[in-house]
Structure formats: C-alpha cells, structure tokens
C-alpha cells in the first residue's frame, strides 16, 4: 500500500498512469451524464409548481455539490502537501482550484437563471447564493496567491495555508450567512434520508452527480498532467517525453 503510494507520488509514474486512466473517466462521465440528462429532461415528470423550470437543477445541484466537494479535495491535498511535503499533492490543489471555481460559477449562473422565472429576479441576497459567491471569492483568492509567487514551491505552500484557513471558515461563513438571511428552498435531497421528491426526479439527479464526479476525475487528471509537465520541465524524463513525441 505504502509502496504504491510512494510510486504514485513520483511524477513520471503518475503521468503515465493518468495518461492511461483519464480517457476512461472521460468517456464514462459522458455516458453517465447523457443517461442522467435523459432521465432528467425526458423521463422525470414536470414539477406541479415549477413546471419544467425545475429541470435546471440537474445541472445546478451537481455543480453546487462539486463546488464544495472540490474545495474539500483542494484543502485535503493542501494539508497532505504541507505535512508530508508531497509535490504532487500541491499540484492536485493547484489543478483543482480552477475547476472548483468554474463549478461555483456554473452553480451561480444556473441558480440565477432559475431564479428569474421562480423568484422573479436574477439575484437575491439569499443565504446559499451569498455563501456560494463567497466561495467563488475564496477560490479566486487561492488562485491569485498561488500565481503571485515567482517560486512555484513557495506559492504552493502559501496558498495551501490559505486553503486550510478557508476550509475552517467555509462552515462558519455558510452558517452565518444562513442565519443572516434565507429565501432559498430547503434542501430536498438527502443522502439516505427521506426525500421530498419522487424517485423519477431524484434518481437522474444522483446519476448527474456521479457523472459530474467522473468528469472532475477525468479533467483533474488531465490538468495534473499539464501541471506535472510544467513543474518538472527541467527534468530528464520530461525532456525525453517531449523529444519522443
């Protein structure tokens, strides 16, 4: 197990591994997402109140879920990088941040498109919208700090600390904003718990979430390959790889 872990941390080994498995995740995510979309857009019945408008949730909810999930991934990778000084872990954080920021933006954009017909306005200062917006700023702050240093390693470690401070703050921000104001409809889907919506509506949602996770897996592997190449550009194996192709 530890031998494998060590091997995984070696950039050339990881690069070749990612080269092989990333397409699998990519194609799988495409299939799963198409299935989820079919279930969500055709099979699921229209909502008795929101009509077909609710269907945007098949993009909105997975994006919002991913925006939080990726932040946790980023912070855990940052902690691993700081504690065990694993170069690859820092690369994971750096590769995850733009993806996380994009999902956060997607969640905000779809949420505001949904808000126009449902609430009558594109934007309200509702708790979850606001904390999602703050999350976007946290991602942008992380990216700004990561790129501010000339030395990649210093930038990695400094932004890792910021990610850790952020992860302590995310629940505090979330609950303080919630306490401040709320208009967003309560969560209708819980894992394992009673759901307020019928299976034909929530099963496609779960499929979409799985599809988004697979998409994330595929693209973080691809982004990591680029990160690894950039970081290791002075090493022999990268030169060899470039010369061969």
């Amino acid at each position, binding site marked *: 197990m530890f031998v494998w872990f060590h091997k995984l941390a070696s950039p050339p080994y990881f690069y070749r591994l990612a080269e092989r498995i990333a397409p699998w995740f990519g194609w799988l995510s495409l299939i799963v997402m198409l299935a989820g979309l079919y279930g969500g857009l055709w099979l699921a019945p229209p909502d008795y109140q929101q009509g077909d408008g609710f269907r945007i949730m098949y993009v909105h909810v997975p994006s919002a879920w991913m925006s939080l999930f990726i932040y946790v991934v980023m912070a855990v990778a940052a902690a691993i990088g*700081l504690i065990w000084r694993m170069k690859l872990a820092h690369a994971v954080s750096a590769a995850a941040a733009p993806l996380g920021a994009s999902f956060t933006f997607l969640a905000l954009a779809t949420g505001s498109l949904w808000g126009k017909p449902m609430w009558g306005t594109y934007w309200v200062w509702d708790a979850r919208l606001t904390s999602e917006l*703050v999350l976007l*700023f*946290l991602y*942008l*702050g992380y990216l*700004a*700090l990561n790129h*501010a*240093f000339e*030395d990649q*390693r*210093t930038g990695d*470690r*400094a*932004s890792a*600390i*910021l990610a*850790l*401070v*952020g992860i*302590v*703050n995310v629940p*505090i*921000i979330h609950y*303080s*904003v919630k*306490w*401040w104001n709320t208009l967003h409809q309560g969560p209708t889907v819980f894992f394992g718990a009673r759901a307020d919506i019928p299976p034909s509506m929530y099963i496609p949602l779960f499929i979409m979430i799985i599809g988004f996770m697979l998409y994330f897996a595929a693209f973080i592997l691809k982004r990591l390959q680029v990160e690894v190449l950039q970081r290791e550009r002075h090493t022999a194996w990268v030169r060899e790889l470039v010369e061969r192709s």
Partner: protein
Amino acid sequence: MNIAALVQRDLRLAYRRRGELATPVIFFIIVTALFPLAVGSEPALLRRLAPGVIWVAALLASLIGQDSLFKSDYEDGSLEQTLLSPAPLEGLVLLRVFTHWLVTGLPLVILAVLLALMLGYPTGAMGVLVLGLLLGTPVLSFLGAIGASLTVGLRRSGMLLPILVLPLTVPVLIFGAAAGERAALGEPAAAPVYFLAAMLVLAVTLAPFAIAGGLRISLES
C-alpha cells in the same frame, strides 16, 4: 520570553511611525463620510444604515493597516531573528497581532462612537455596537495577519491582501452589523455578540498557527 519587552518594542516602533498609524483612522472617517454623500443625508435612512456603514468602513480600514504588520520587520531582517528565537513563534505572533490591534484597531473602535453619533445612531444602543467592535476588530486583525504573513515576501502584496482576507471576514461583518442593528431596534442583541465572542476565541486559538506557518513559508524562500 519577556512579554512586556516585546509589547514595549512594538508600541515604541508604532509611536515612532505615528503618521503611518493615522492612515487607517483617516481612511475610516473618509469612507464613513462617503456614505451620506452617496445615499443622501436623510436622517432616518442614515440611522438605519449606521451599523452596517460603521462595520464596512472599520473592516476596510483595519485591512489598510494590516499590510504593514510584518513588512518593516521583514525588510530590516528582524523578522528572521524572531523566527530564530527559542520562544514559540505562535506566541510571538499572538503578541504582535495584539499590539498591532492596540494601535490600529482600538482607535477605530473609539472613533466609531463619534461616527455612529454623526450618523444618528441611538446613544442607548452604543454600548452594544462598541462591544461588538471590541470583539470583532481583533478577529479582523488576526485574519488580516494571516494574509499579511502569506504575502509579506511579495512586492505587490497591497493589492492581493484584500482579495485573500475579505471573503474570510464575512461572518464577522454579519454578526457585528447584526448586533448593532438589533440594539438600535431595541431587540436583544446577545446572540450575535456571543457569536462574535466565539469567533474571537477561535481566532485567538487557531490563527497564530496559520500566521506562524505563513511566516515560515514566506521567509524560507
């Protein structure tokens, strides 16, 4: 570690740079004065906006002061000496942030009383607003210090610091302004004040580790 000597050194250094210390205070007054100019001078409106305006202005003003927290020590090399000291860096950092708050945060709290009165904030509620600021501005100092420790080695840190720190200050702003607003409306304001106190406890216990870690990274390169 001689605590009194450290505090005295920081205070003396601050006193020698009086002009620099005045900047956040002046900034605080100007930002507050901009609000009536922008939204109109109607007393009822200003009275309603007062706690929010005071808090936003105090938040921005306290950030202005944070950039200088480690800068001069970094430039003249005494920060490296601090890191080499046998005393735990976390403790030294805690003292440094505290004295920095004494010279940058506390003046803001005192001045806030005057500015709140100018905005027509009810005098009876002033105690709660000040208590909120007394609990909240040190949290802002700690958060700002985290940002300052991470950016101390950068040349253009002044631009970066607010982007890093402002999102983290959202909870303080919410509870601080809520305390002031509730007190003004004559409602019980204990809950937000307790939340502010809890955040202060959290900041005092956790932030020094992040600040110390940030300084170690900034100086290693």
